[in-house]
Each structure stands twice: as structure tokens, then as C-alpha cells.
């Protein structure tokens, strides 16, 4: 019997080694798997490479991981925000590396990894400093930049519902990077609000099929949502 449900976030992350590359879902706080990140901080792995759209907001979630100096490098599109003080401080001190990637290129590089694509040409960033040093090619009337996939050892994501096979649905814009990150990592760990019986998710509405998911953890939700 396939059962991907694990009893705790601690158990789900126990084998993450120092130096791992970890994708973390979320766009700001929407979709951020905060319980998994807290467990990762407690677990102690360091020298991590993190892939996220941002580099942490305020003092919780990814910001706390960065603030705890567990992160060697961040790949993201938008590190600088009014409340990104942990990243800002370490970046200015030269203690964290940044690979800045345009948001759509970040998404497509993640998607490409999950879909077995070796590289792709995108028009984004052509003629800008974010394309410096990269191969370019004129195809038809347009210029393109060659970009490579981003693979990860782990993806930590948040979903709304799961079954024991790891089929997932999401809520609203919390979906953001989660489905593509799930496909791009060797081991995808999901925190969910609710676990339902097999068959409890309409197959027509499954967003992430369980083939991409290794471990599912139910987390007591503190979701602040409209009544």
C-alpha cells in the first residue's frame, strides 16, 4: 500500500543534509510552508541553496531560515523588499550569495527541470545585464537568451488537500510555484491543511498528481481567511 503520509514535519525532513538545494514554495507569505521551514531550522541543516521567489519577509518562515545563517545562496527574482532585513544584512556583509533571475525565467527553469528539458531560449532579459555572459540566439525576428533548468534535492511546499498517494489541490494564489517545484525536486515534501481518503479529491481537479510527491504532513492550520 502506498502511504506518503508521515507523522510530523520533523520526520519528513530528517534526512536533509548540509549543502542541499531546496526549493521553497510561496510568493511572499501566500503558499509559504512555514511549518516545514520551522522544522528545517530545528533540524539544523546548513550551507543550503534556496530557490524561492523572494528572500524572506519579516522574521518568520524563509526570513527566519536566512536569519539563522543556514543559507549559503539564494536564487530568486525579488529579494529586496521593505521587510527583507535578514537577507539585506547578510547580503551587504557578503555572507550570502544571490543569483537574481527574472520571475518568469525562474518559473520556466523550474518547470524545465521537472519536464526533462535540457535548456531553453527565452526572450526575457535579452539586452540587459541579467543576460550578460549567457549564450544568445536570433530565431526569426527575435533575440533569445539560453537558460538552463534548476534542479533541487528537496521541494518544501504547501497545499490545501492531499490523499495518501500525494495528489494535491491548492487554495487561491497560494498555488504559485508549488506545482512546478514539486516536479523539479528529487524529494517533494508537502504540508497540507487536510488529508482526505483516496478518491476524496475529484480527479478532474487534482493540480499536482501524486507522482511528484514523496511525503505529506498534515499541519494544524492557522489560516486567516474570510468567513
Amino acid at each position, binding site marked *: 500500500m502506498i502511504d506518503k503520509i508521515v507523522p510530523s514535519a520533523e520526520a519528513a525532513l530528517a534526512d536533509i543534509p548540509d549543502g542541499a538545494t531546496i526549493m521553497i514554495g510561496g510568493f511572499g507569505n501566500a503558499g509559504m510552508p512555514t511549518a516545514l521551514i520551522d522544522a528545517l531550522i530545528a533540524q539544523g541543516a546548513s550551507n543550503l541553496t534556496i530557490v524561492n521567489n523572494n528572500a524572506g519577509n519579516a522574521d518568520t518562515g524563509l526570513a527566519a531560515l536566512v536569519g539563522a545563517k543556514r543559507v549559503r545562496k539564494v536564487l530568486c527574482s525579488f529579494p*529586496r523588499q521593505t521587510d527583507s532585513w535578514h537577507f539585506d544584512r547578510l547580503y551587504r556583509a557578503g555572507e550570502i550569495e544571490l543569483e537574481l533571475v527574472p520571475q518568469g525565467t525562474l518559473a*520556466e527553469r523550474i518547470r524545465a527541470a521537472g519536464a526533462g528539458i535540457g535548456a531553453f531560449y527565452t526572450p526575457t532579459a*535579452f539586452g540587459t545585464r541579467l543576460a550578460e555572459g549567457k549564450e544568445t540566439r536570433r530565431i526569426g525576428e527575435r533575440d533569445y537568451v539560453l537558460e538552463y533548468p534548476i534542479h533541487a534535492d528537496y521541494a518544501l511546499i504547501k497545499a490545501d488537500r492531499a490523499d495518501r498517494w500525494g495528489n494535491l489541490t491548492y487554495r487561491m*494564489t497560494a498555488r504559485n510555484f508549488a506545482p512546478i517545484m514539486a516536479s523539479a525536486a528529487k524529494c517533494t515534501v508537502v504540508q497540507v491543511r487536510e488529508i482526505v481518503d483516496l478518491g476524496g479529491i475529484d480527479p478532474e481537479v487534482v493540480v499536482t498528481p501524486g507522482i511528484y510527491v514523496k511525503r505529506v504532513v498534515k499541519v494544524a492550520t492557522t489560516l*486567516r481567511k474570510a468567513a
Partner: protein
Amino acid sequence: MKKLDRKQLAARVARDIPEGAYVNLGIGLPTLIADHLPKGREIIVHSENGVLGLGPRPAPGAEDEDLTNAGKEPATLITGGAYFHHADSFGMIRGRHLDFAVLGAFQVSVAGDLANWHTGGEGDIPAVGGAMDLAVGAKQVLVMMEHLTKDGKSKIVERCTYPLTGARCVNRIYTDLAVIDVKPDGLHVVDLVDGLSFEELQRLTGVSLKKFLTAA
């Protein structure tokens, strides 16, 4: 001359967004356009984080942390709206499916080069988000900005001195002084605020402008 304030500028851009358009409104000034879209027109607002049919800000107390706009502020979804993941969202952008992207800018060049992501200053932490994707992807890229910097220099320039977001990507510039189309043969002024002459706009702008004023 009567410079447009931020709301008037937003209303001026909104007036030109037609029925049925799919449009992305950039973070900052362009976000204001949503409040001024003409009632009675069905216009679908795209948000990079995975929304078509973005609605207005929710009432206090009705926020949902799972539903935000691209600026990470609480948002709503209009009836008929849809959610999708990030690769789909940017595929939509790069794949030329959006009719308009409205972006803020530090500078726009005569050739339509756009600089809006980085001042290039020493010690500044760069952040780009989806700006470069929108600049190359939307069918029409509209820029919305103040015409002059705080110290009175034109933000429309011969060549951008700030790092580029995209080359030759801007189609039209809306400022608090004028509406200017970027064409292969140069900049065409199509609208001026009340009390501003073409000659005065030319003097303030510095780079060569062509007069193509249409009836107000």
C-alpha cells in the same frame, strides 16, 4: 499648465483600456489604474502570481492570506476569475497573450528602451520580479510615470543611463504632462495636459518630439 495628479494619470490610462482587454498592471503607480477602469467595460486584470480576474482590495476584515496581488497585498477575485501556477502565468505573459502591460519607469529612451528595475547604485540590492518578462511579452507595453525627475530632468531620454529592463519594448508613454507614442521614426506626442504647449513640452523633454495631436 495643469499637471495630472496620480489619480488623474491613472484615469487617463484607464480610459484607453478597451472592453475585453487582458491587462497586467505593474506594482506601484499602475496599480491605481484598477480603481479607474471605466464601469461597464469587462476588462480582465492579470496578476503574475497566478490570477486572471483580479478584483479590488477586500474590505477590512475580509482579507485572505492565500489571495494576494503581485505586490503581495490582499486582493479579491472577480466572478469568472481563475487561478494557475507560476509557469502558466509567465507563459501567458511571454506567449503574447496579454493585450497590455502597464509599467512604471525610471527612464524610457527614444527607441522605446525601458529602465525600471535597478538604479545601478553601488550597494543597492537588485530585484527584478516579473518586469523583464512583461516588457518582452505583452502585445502593448504602456509606461506610466512622472514626466520629470524630482530635480526637473526628463525621464524620456536619448539613451537610458539606468540598467535596461527591456530593449525597444515600450509602445506608449503616459506622463503627468503628455501621452507619447514610441514609433520607428521617433516619439509622437498624441495628447497634452491643459495649458501646456507642444513647444513647452519639447523644451522640458529635451529629446526630439513630433506633433501628432488628435482632437481632445
